[in-house]
């Protein structure tokens, strides 16, 4: 059973503001991403969730112009972003899972390099952030922990006033204290800059639950779920009796397991379905965990 992405069904995420991916596709040997339609709104953090090889990094690479689109379009506030768009590179920052700065350079030289390459660079703000993150400018990048390298990436991103910060698995391999610190930093960034868009790809539910406003689940190269996290978590989860025939319009997301339909209903359908014979309210409601595992059964 497959369902169209929620944005195609009039989700609040479907808006022209911010970064819009429309029918984005990438064909690689042995892998096909898309078509993906997705909207990333200013002032919000979008959590990308999906198993390894689902296409999360490919999606980020397409936005960061590291990969060429096979089809579709990406726009920022309706202005198209094209391959090699130097102006676009001024406006985003992409922090990969393996943060690849020059190990031999001190932190200060790394910032100087970035400052020389970006047209917009706020050196004073960079120094403030170094202080805030307790990064020693004299230390060589190669001696920094992964957490501190991610922080350095965030300093670079913010000091050049990026509109979009993409973090690909930034917390993988970090201890809980550093992860919690990064979650706090991301929340603070968004609170400080209402124009900033953050995209956070992670396997760790807790990170996304704490840092993200919107959740996008990617599986097998397709977006199988996207919605606001808060509205998802306050939504009910229904398990329907056997033989129930699903109406697409009733569900924000639905899947089958053990011969029964499980669904997170739309707001409109929730009341109606509650009185539906054979509809059972699952205790705990629609957690991210339940929806994530449920979506395994959408495309399998």
């Amino acid at each position, binding site marked *: 059973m497959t369902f169209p992405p929620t944005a195609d069904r009039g989700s609040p995420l479907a808006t022209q503001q911010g970064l819009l991916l429309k029918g984005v596709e990438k064909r690689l040997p042995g892998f096909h991403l898309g078509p993906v339609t997705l909207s990333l709104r200013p002032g919000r953090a979008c959590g990308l969730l999906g198993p390894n090889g689902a296409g999360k990094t490919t999606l980020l*690479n397409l936005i*960061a*112009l*590291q*990969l*060429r689109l096979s089809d579709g379009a990406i726009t920022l506030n309706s202005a198209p972003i094209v391959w*090699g768009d*130097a*102006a676009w*590179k*001024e406006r*985003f*920052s*992409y922090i*990969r899972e*393996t943060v*690849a*700065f*020059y*190990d*031999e*350079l001190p932190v200060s*030289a790394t910032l*100087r*390099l*970035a400052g*020389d*390459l*970006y*047209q917009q660079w706020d050196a004073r703000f960079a120094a403030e952030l170094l202080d805030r993150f307790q990064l020693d400018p004299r230390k060589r990048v190669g001696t920094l922990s992964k957490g501190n390298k991610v922080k350095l990436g965030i300093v670079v991103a913010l000091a050049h006033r990026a509109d979009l910060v993409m973090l690909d698995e930034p917390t993988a391999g970090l201890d809980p204290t550093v992860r919690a610190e990064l979650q706090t930093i991301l929340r603070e960034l968004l609170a400080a800059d209402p124009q900033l868009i953050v995209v956070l790809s992670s396997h760790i539910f807790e990170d996304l639950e704490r840092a993200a406003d919107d959740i996008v689940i990617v599986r097998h190269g397709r977006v199988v779920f996207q919605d606001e996290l808060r509205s998802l978590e306050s939504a009910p989860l229904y398990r329907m009796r056997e033989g129930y025939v699903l109406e697409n319009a009733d569900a924000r997301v639905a899947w089958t397991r053990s011969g029964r339909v499980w669904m997170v209903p739309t707001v409109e359908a929730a009341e109606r379905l509650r009185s539906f014979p054979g509809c059972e309210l699952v205790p705990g409601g629609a957690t991210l965990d339940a929806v994530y595992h449920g979506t395994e059964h959408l495309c399998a």
Partner: protein
Amino acid sequence: MRALIRKDVHVHRLGMAGTAAVLLGLPALAGLVKPDASEASGTSLIVNLNFILVLVWGDWLVSREKTKGTIGWLRTLPVPEETMVTAKVATYMLGCVSLWIASTVLYCRHFYFPARWREWVLVLCALMFFGTVSVCGRFRFRQKLGQVLPPLVLGVLAGAYYVLVRMAPAETARLTVRGMQPRFVVPEAAGILALSVAVVWVTVAWLRRAETFQLVE
């Protein structure tokens, strides 16, 4: 571009300085071992060592970016591809020219100056060309081919010259002498440098189309 050159100098300063020191030390060591060696054989050693370093440095400058993934970060920055390539070539040139001047002034200034200054200029141009091929080849190709390409080009050209010498020795010698005439040196040097520019141009054109996964190893 200056920022990228400064970065490369910082990142590679130890490796480049170390190998340059070896190059500058080896002829002195050879002089101690064989004090009666002719100046011509000493010059030949200097030229060969310079050519070896050309291939090593060109490879280093780009390989490090590709294997450590830093080229992936560079590609997310607003750095035009032409700046990326020309900065590497310029860093290489900086090292190559400095080393050629230092090594020849130290060990074979009487061989080249004043009589053979034209040869000195043309060897320097050849070093610059092969360094450019080495840098650009490493951008364009993966490690195995990228490392083999410059010696291959060098070998093919040297082989062609050798074949010419064997087949038509008199004619080749006459052409060589003619090529060293003052009026031909400037166009020849300009030709070699133009070829280097063409190699850079082709590499930039490819790099503009390339996706980052094609660059990271």
